[in-house]
């Protein structure tokens, strides 16, 4: 079945069928390209169109209903292809090219000879035309050069440097030879999955079974050894290095166009696309390129392969989705915990709504640019401009803006949660030390919150937020301040504070905070962090510990972490998040300080020596 199109050819109305129209358009385009180099090229083309119109009109007068592909071939025999025309009309003599032709190559297109120089291509230009020029020089598909360049670039950027040098050195081509082009296409005939393998086969002129085996070998191998080894045969598929090849296949599948027109099929096989070969291919279309008929068994087998490959592809796509989620999680530096999604969102967000809006928004705002970058890379590498549908662009745009908007919404709603603060001071019981000296020591807690005061090998990495286990979050937002007692007794008190969208909420977050401490004789053990009750988000919860030492009494600190003397506050004011640190006076470890009239005074060596016997547990170290 063929559509008939009416065209206006140099002022004549010509009915022409669709396949003939394609051929005619191709022919005229090639003539146009050919004559565009010549002065008065447009005029020549017009004259020729006029003559072609005249020939067609004669044809139609002989009772043909329309112009067919056969008529086009006949017309081209009369008018001649650009190559023939050049041969017949070229002004310069041609013996030189004769010798070259005989000696060098046996190309079918006659007379087209220029000394081959390396140049930058204008026709195949993505960035600077270097790849296109190289491809034209070696007569291969520019996509291959681009992929190779990308691979070389991965080796410490060598490819990029080579590219820049060539860009600077090579001249831009003024006119480019029309060498027979070979292009990678997907071959819609003879395809098993996506036609990538048979396309490669057609390009390289080899049997399609070879690329197929290459692509399938690691897959089959891994599955085979997987079954032999442990039976979980998809595990290595998900984790192993195989995805490279599968990714390559998917990228090629996504980026290579399908060879649908006759011209593309010719390009795929590396034939010269000129008018003779086109019309010849049109005629032999139904013979040579038609797929071989498969027997029932073979087609059943290929169906099985198809199902299997699609199954594997599905699994790998799932794995890729998992990788993307993991990448996003790494953005938050949380990949180290197994249940990384939930404590974090619990820590940041207040309500379920906030939590879900946050995660969906973050995924949208990160994944869409990621996909866009991948698509861009694929386009750059293959040099083909694939049309993206407007619908896709619109949807992607809307989703991305929704994601960004959502992130802002959550951020501002979290900002509101820092509006009001609540603080309350609680006195803590403290037994008076027996020998006028109080030692303050860091308390080590194991996972259950049990105190383990003797172990000294703990780490100092207690800054900030820490995951004690998957669901318990410990916050080291603790500070210690040592001041003079108003009376003759030691006092210990703690101030708990938190933020909230209202004071009730802030109070609700602050009050349940537990300050775990211990006293053993003259030694006071202080915790290095506190845990948030389950389900409580982090809203600047803080504990300020104050130790009051009466005048004339002595205290000393042992192994207290440095940040113990820093009072940190998180403030959100007018949409800006601020972190403030306020340093208290800090006390040197293992030093004795006596509370004087105006504050603690460092005691000298003499005092230390006499008091040494009272702190025997210090001698262990």
């Amino acid at each position, binding site marked *: 079945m063929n559509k008939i199109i009416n065209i206006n050819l*140099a*002022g*004549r109305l010509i009915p022409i069928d669709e396949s003939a129209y394609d051929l005619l358009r191709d022919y005229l385009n090639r*003539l146009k390209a050919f*004559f565009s180099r*010549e*002065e*008065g090229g447009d*005029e*020549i083309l017009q*004259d*020729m169109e*006029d*003559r072609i*119109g*005249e020939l067609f*009109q004669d044809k139609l007068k002989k009772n043909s209903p329309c112009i067919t592909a056969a008529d086009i071939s006949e017309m081209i025999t*009369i*008018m*001649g*292809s*650009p190559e*023939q*025309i050049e*041969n*017949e*009309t070229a002004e310069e003599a*041609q013996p030189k090219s*004769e010798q070259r032709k005989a000696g060098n190559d046996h190309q079918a297109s*006659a007379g087209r000879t220029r000394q081959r120089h390396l140049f930058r291509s204008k026709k195949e230009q993505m960035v600077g035309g270097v790849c296109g020029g190289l491809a034209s020089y070696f007569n291969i598909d520019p996509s291959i050069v681009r992929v190779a360049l990308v691979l070389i670039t991965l080796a410490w950027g060598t490819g990029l440097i080579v590219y820049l040098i060539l860009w600077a050195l090579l001249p831009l081509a003024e006119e480019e030879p029309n060498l027979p082009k070979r292009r990678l296409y997907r071959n819609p005939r003879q395809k098993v999955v996506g036609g990538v393998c048979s396309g490669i086969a057609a390009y390289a002129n080899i049997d399609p079974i070879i690329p197929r085996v290459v692509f399938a070998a690691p897959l089959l191998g891994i599955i085979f050894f997987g079954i032999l080894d442990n039976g979980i045969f998809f595990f290595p598929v998900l984790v192993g290095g195989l995805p490279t090849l599968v990714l390559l296949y998917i990228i090629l599948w996504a980026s290579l166009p399908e060879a649908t027109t006759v011209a593309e099929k010719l390009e795929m096989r590396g034939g010269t696309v000129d008018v003779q070969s086109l019309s010849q291919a049109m005629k032999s279309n139904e013979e040579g390129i038609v797929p071989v008929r498969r027997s029932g068994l073979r087609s059943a087998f290929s169906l099985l392969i198809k199902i299997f490959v699609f199954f594997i592809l599905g699994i790998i796509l799932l794995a890729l989705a998992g990788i993307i989620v993991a990448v996003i999680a790494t953005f938050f530096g949380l990949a180290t915990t197994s249940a990384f999604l939930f404590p974090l969102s619990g820590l940041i967000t207040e309500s379920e709504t906030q939590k879900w809006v946050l995660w969906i928004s973050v995924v949208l705002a990160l994944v869409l640019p990621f996909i866009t970058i991948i698509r861009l890379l694929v386009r750059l590498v293959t040099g083909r401009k694939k049309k993206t549908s407007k619908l896709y662009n619109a949807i992607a745009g809307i989703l991305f803006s929704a994601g960004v908007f959502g992130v802002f919404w959550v951020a501002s709603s979290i900002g509101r949660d820092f509006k009001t603060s609540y603080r309350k001071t609680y006195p803590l019981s403290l037994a008076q030390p027996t020998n006028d000296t109080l030692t303050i020591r860091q308390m080590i807690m194991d996972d259950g919150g049990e105190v383990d005061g003797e172990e000294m090998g703990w780490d100092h990495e207690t800054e900030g937020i820490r995951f004690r286990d998957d669901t318990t979050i410990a916050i080291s937002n603790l500070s210690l301040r040592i001041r003079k007692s108003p009376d003759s007794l030691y006092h210990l008190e703690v101030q708990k504070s938190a933020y909230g969208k209202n004071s009730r909420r802030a109070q609700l977050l602050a009050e349940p905070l537990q300050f775990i401490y211990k006293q053993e004789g003259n030694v006071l053990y202080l915790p290095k962090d506190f845990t948030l009750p389950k389900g409580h988000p982090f809203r600047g919860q803080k504990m300020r510990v104050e130790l009051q030492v009466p005048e004339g009494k002595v205290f000393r600190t042992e192994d207290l972490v440095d940040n113990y003397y820093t009072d940190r506050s998180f403030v959100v004011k007018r949409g800006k998040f601020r972190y403030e640190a306020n340093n208290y006076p800090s006390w040197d470890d293992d030093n004795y300080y006596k509370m004087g009239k105006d504050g603690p005074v460092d005691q000298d060596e003499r005092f230390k020596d006499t008091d040494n016997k009272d702190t025997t547990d210090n001698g262990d170290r």
Partner: protein
Amino acid sequence: MNTENTQSQMRKGVLEFCILSIIRQSEVYPSEIIEQMKNAGLSILEGTLYPLLTRLKNAELLSYRWEESASGPPRKYFSLTEKGAAFYLELESTWKQLADAVNQLTQARPGS
């Protein structure tokens, strides 16, 4: 060397001369030139005629005018310019010499 190429070389040389000669006899449009050549037994690729005409016109050897046609769009009628006429005369004398010489040479050996 293949025959086809040599033939095309031979044709190429005389093509311009033939075209100028036809135009010299009367004002013609391109399809007429082709017709006349065919009738004379000289078949060419029609596509070669148009670039030649344009080149000759650009070299100011030919000029043309448009004329309405009963059976289609207007046609280009070509005629020789003065320069073209002089050019033709030169070509004609060269051709005569060449033809005489070639005839003499080829007829000298009737065996071949």
